[in-house]
């Protein structure tokens, strides 16, 4: 538990660096995890070479989902959309730096699901992120 709620997670939860919204934006997508009521929206601006210049998120959720959203959104600034499409479950878990059990995995990966839906379009997402 001490591990799951290490300082970085609590700090990111209470003081997220990337919280906010971008208007106008080039990409925006919102999704929720109805099981726990978590909801995350991510807005992106990209330049002419499809490189993310600005990113921000809004939403409510548990410490795991907010911290992972904050870390993920921070990590994509300066990345090209192609690189973002390659991000996977392990990248997010590495950023969090904690072991996440099967039940909380959905919390940890909600922001990745939202981000991928945003840059890919909705339809391909369910195949893209399998939680099991």
């Amino acid at each position: 538990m001490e591990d799951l709620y290490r300082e970085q997670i609590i700090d990111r939860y209470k003081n997220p660096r990337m919280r906010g919204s971008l208007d106008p934006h080039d990409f925006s997508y919102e999704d929720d995890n109805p099981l726990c009521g978590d909801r995350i929206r991510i807005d992106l601006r990209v330049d002419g070479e499809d490189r993310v210049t600005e990113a921000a998120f809004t939403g409510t959720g548990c410490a795991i989902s907010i911290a992972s959203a904050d870390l993920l959104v921070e990590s994509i600034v300066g990345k090209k959309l192609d690189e973002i499409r390659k991000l996977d479950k392990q990248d997010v878990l590495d950023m969090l730096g904690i072991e996440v059990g099967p039940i909380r995995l959905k919390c940890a990966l909600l922001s990745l699901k939202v981000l991928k839906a945003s840059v890919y379009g909705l339809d391909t997402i369910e195949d893209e992120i399998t939680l099991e």
Partner: protein
Amino acid sequence: MVQSQVKVFDVERIREQFPILSREVYPGTRLVYLDSAATSQKPRSVIEALVDFYEHHNSNIHRGIHKLAEEATQAHEDARQRIAEFIGARTAREVVFTRNATESINLLANAWGRANLKPGDLVLLTEMEHHSNLVPWYMLAEEIGLHLEFVPVTDEGKLDLEAYRTLLEEGPRLVAFVHVSNMLGTINPAAQMTDLAHEAGALVLVDGAQSVPHLAVDVSELDVDFYAFSGHKMCGPTGIGVFYGRESLLEAMPPFMGGGDMIRRVRFDGFMPNDVPWKFEAGTPAIAQAIGLGAAVDFLNDVGIENVHAHEQVLTGYALDRLSEVPGVTIYGPELDARGGVVSFTMEGIHPHDVAQILDHDGIAVRAGHHCTMPLHERFQIPASVRASFYLYNTTEEIDQLVEGLHKVIEVFDI
């Protein structure tokens, strides 16, 4: 000399009968199980009844002409009889075995609903229903065009009975409500609500998933038409539940699922259904589980269901007091007198999942989420809550551990 009927309630002696309560959740950490509203733990006598059935009597029931079939059939139908007595049914024919309360409600919606409801008919539900008493009606409403209304819940977590009276004036065909709310803990005035519904010409279904395990329930006295509950929340196995129906109503209802056991005769040009209750029990039933539920009823009778309720009142009162001392805690639901052994709450600035996760580290099992009552959570404008629920084996020390755990949560989050 008249023997005293007063039973002594000794929680330590009760705990000894639940093997799981002595396990460690993590090394050196004992289980504090505060999630009985989700499913209860099982006493040794129930576990042994299952083992005994499979080791000595296992057979299919009702048609076999051999010793085992006879024993199994007898045990299965004996269990039905004892369960019928436990809930005050007039006859065991009024007790239909299902998988759980959810299946019981689906049975009513499909068998009675399809045969009796017409487009535009009103089914009156409440804002505090579990999804199991909402979704079957939504599905039927979509199919045949029913009109659904919901009795509102007040801020203190009770049904608004004035609004209920007004809604009854619209002439519902069926009123379906929960006896004890699995989120707020509210004990609804089922007898009064049933009388009012009958005066308005409606039939009544009560979802008793959280009442039969904890309170003395007498369906004949309540005068309800239908009653649904699950075995696994009352010390019984999973996979067995009950649909109670007034005999004359069951007789008039068409069957639910088709197959073996629910027929009297099958020909190439059709079938004749069996008598009640078997008419509603297609296929090989959950035989061992029904017998296990019979053992659970014996166990609860032995303890005394009034003692169970009284013990839970003590625990709930203690929990309400202790939890209200914790900074940032908001408790939902009514005062102690109108409440069963359920306390749902939120903590300011901390998501329920995080609360539950940190409690789990100390072996404390609570539930976090919407507890299958999403509309009710919406009504209270919260995405989720933490729920501690109690049963006959819980102690005030366990509530102290819960409160200690919540202080740890505050410490971790530094709020």
